[in-house]
């Protein structure tokens, strides 16, 4: 073989070997890369692919609705669902901002048009919300305008057909679909239900397509609720308290009406109120309107609390309705002198007189009787009164199903005697209107403290109805004899005392007025020209159908509660007798 030929063959073999080697190397590189991608990076690529090829769709659960009934057990909705639309703009596609603003002006509410024009002219903005709540009729109108750059997105909304009437009971649902105040907040979880989720493979446009990989978790709709509130009674109460506030030039007022035999709240109205359909219209200085003052606002109960102290003494057998003392118009406790509200003295007075004439000195006398020495306030006096205050439910939340309830403040029995002397007639203690109404219910029904409640029925999404039963907190607050005695004393308040405007032929009404002073914010005594007038009572005394509390805050007319709260109580009571068809007893 010639040498030249051998060299050429060797060279060719070498080149082939190198080529094969390179191909093998390439194959190995590809193989290693495949292993890396398919095994080690499997999960992350699956996630990327899923993100590109499938989408998660939230299926909103339907929020439960809220109903009330009337005397004939007819149901009326007070909170319903409604499909609303959010209107937004994409300035990039808006050529003439003036035209858009002009055409949409009626749907923009109070929006500052100059500010909006500036925003729309800024093409760097890509999303400007114009209105978060447009109904479907307006949405159709906007659609028909065919404006480029205007976006309409459907969203679930809430409608309150009764407007202001039940605002403090329902609260409202905000733009984040979260309940605020009232039942909407307190029962938010139960009302909202749980959203469902659908994960579906989508086409290139993001439209879901049929696939075995699609998954669906169905939404769980929220529960609906039927309240204990009677819409007609609520209406009477709301109208009456509005009239009272206007007539007395007061700042605010409230009415609570409760069934004393169950604790079911029949009406809870506060004035001023707000329209939950347009809650965003309430200005920052009026945010207090959102608050249900019947359960949130704390105040000194004033003389209305005297019935609690007197009940304690009657139940302990320390006094009787005809027990008497000499009212000198003042009573010395430690270094303080306690006087009657009108600075008068009444001489020899019975316990019935003490309640009927609302004598502060009489309450100090009663407090002294509770202890071991009837001539002074002892530790035992304070212990017993504190025990009864707690038994009546003060200093604790009642547990009503409404957001924002306060528990109040009660000084414990280690406090000074003068503090307890003040507490005996309703000063130096803070309570909510609901607590006082609930406590007086216990007197009305013969000594049982019920938990106040507003939810009568829970209607589960499957249609099952869960009836709320009355809940007894304790049935030994008072003996029926003591309850009857204090009721009789309260009857005298109406017959002969400050509750006279509620006197009605043929009806026995029991009640107690209270004109509470308002402590100064800095704690240095009381405001001179501010008071809270209240009247708490029940009727008919022999078989109570209702307990009612009327409160008028900071009236600008002269006089005590008999001029502010009592006439309102009388007006509502008169209507309630007709509504409940309670015939006069002939006396």
């Amino acid at each position: 073989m010639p040498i030249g030929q051998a060299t050429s063959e060797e060279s060719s073999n070498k080149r082939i070997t190198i080529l094969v080697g390179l191909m093998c190397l390439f194959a190995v590189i590809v193989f290693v890369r495949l292993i890396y991608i398919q095994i080690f990076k499997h999960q992350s690529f699956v996630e990327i692919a899923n993100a590109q090829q499938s989408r998660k769709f939230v299926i909103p659960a339907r929020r439960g609705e809220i109903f009330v009934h009337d005397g004939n057990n007819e149901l009326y909705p007070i909170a319903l669902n409604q499909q609303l639309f959010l209107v937004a703009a994409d300035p990039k596609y808006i050529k003439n901002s003036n035209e858009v603003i002009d055409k949409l002006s009626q749907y923009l509410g109070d929006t500052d048009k100059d500010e909006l024009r500036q925003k729309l002219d800024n093409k760097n903005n890509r999303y400007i919300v114009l209105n978060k709540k447009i109904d479907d009729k307006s949405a159709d109108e906007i659609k028909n305008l065919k404006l480029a750059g205007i976006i309409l997105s459907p969203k679930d909304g809430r409608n309150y057909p009764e407007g202001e009437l039940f605002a403090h009971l329902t609260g409202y649902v905000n733009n984040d679909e979260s309940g605020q105040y009232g039942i909407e907040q307190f029962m938010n979880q139960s009302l909202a239900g749980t959203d469902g989720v659908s994960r579906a493979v989508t086409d290139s446009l993001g439209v879901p397509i049929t696939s075995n990989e699609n998954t669906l978790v169905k939404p769980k709709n929220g529960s609906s609720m039927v309240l204990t509130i009677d819409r007609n009674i609520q209406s009477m109460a709301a109208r009456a308290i509005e009239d009272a506030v206007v007539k007395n030039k007061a700042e605010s007022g409230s009415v609570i009406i409760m069934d004393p035999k169950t604790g079911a709240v029949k009406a809870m109205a506060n004035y001023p109120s707000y329209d939950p359909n347009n809650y965003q219209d309430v200005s920052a200085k009026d945010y207090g309107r959102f608050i249900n003052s019947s359960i949130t606002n704390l105040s000194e109960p004033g003389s209305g609390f005297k019935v609690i102290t007197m009940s304690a003494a009657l139940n302990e057998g320390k006094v009787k309705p005809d027990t008497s003392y000499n009212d000198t118009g003042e009573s010395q406790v430690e270094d303080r002198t306690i006087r009657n509200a009108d600075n008068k003295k009444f001489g020899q007075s019975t316990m019935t007189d003490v309640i009927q004439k609302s004598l502060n000195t009489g309450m100090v006398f009663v407090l002294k009787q509770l202890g071991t020495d009837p001539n002074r306030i002892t530790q035992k006096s304070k212990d017993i009164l504190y025990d009864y205050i707690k038994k009546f439910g003060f200093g604790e939340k009642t547990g009503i199903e409404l957001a924002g309830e306060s528990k109040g403040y009660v000084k414990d029995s280690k406090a000074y005697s003068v503090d307890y002397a003040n507490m005996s007639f309703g000063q130096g203690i803070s309570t909510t209107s609901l607590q006082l109404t609930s406590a007086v219910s216990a007197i009305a029904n013969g000594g049982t403290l019920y938990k106040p409640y507003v939810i009568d029925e829970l209607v589960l999404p499957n249609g099952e109805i869960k009836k709320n039963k009355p809940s007894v907190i304790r049935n030994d607050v008072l003996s029926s004899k003591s309850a009857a005695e204090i009721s009789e004393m309260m009857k005298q308040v109406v017959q002969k005392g400050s509750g006279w405007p509620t006197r009605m032929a043929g009806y026995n009404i029991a009640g107690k007025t209270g004109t509470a002073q308002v402590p100064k914010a800095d704690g240095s005594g009381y405001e001179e020209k501010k008071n809270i007038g209240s009247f708490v009572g029940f009727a008919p005394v022999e078989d109570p159908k209702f307990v009612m509390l009327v409160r008028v805050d900071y009236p600008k007319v002269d006089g005590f509660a008999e001029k502010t709260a009592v006439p309102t109580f009388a007006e509502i009571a008169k209507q309630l007798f007709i509504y409940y068809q309670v015939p006069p007893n002939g006396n």
Partner: protein
Amino acid sequence: MSSAGMSLRKNQNIVKNKIRLESGPVTTILMMVSLLLILGLMYLSQVTKTSTFNYKISNLEQKQNQLQSSKDNLSIDAARLQSIAEAKKAAETAKLAQVKTVSFATAR
């Protein structure tokens, strides 16, 4: 009958002629392709059917949502018309007088 003719008759039931179906590569490929085509068509028809149903379901769901929305709106209108505020307005328009005295029948 000759002896040759006899032997032919004798063997008549002994010999069986087998029919052999043989296909060439072209026939096999054609059959495979046809089979694949049929299966493909069946698959396509099922997918189309499912998609149609899916579309129908989606349409029905949309309709259901629209009906639900209309029902909600009607409920709201009905509730608003029955509201206390409306009733009060109607009473004022009709100039209804408020009840002032109520008499109860007494049992003898």
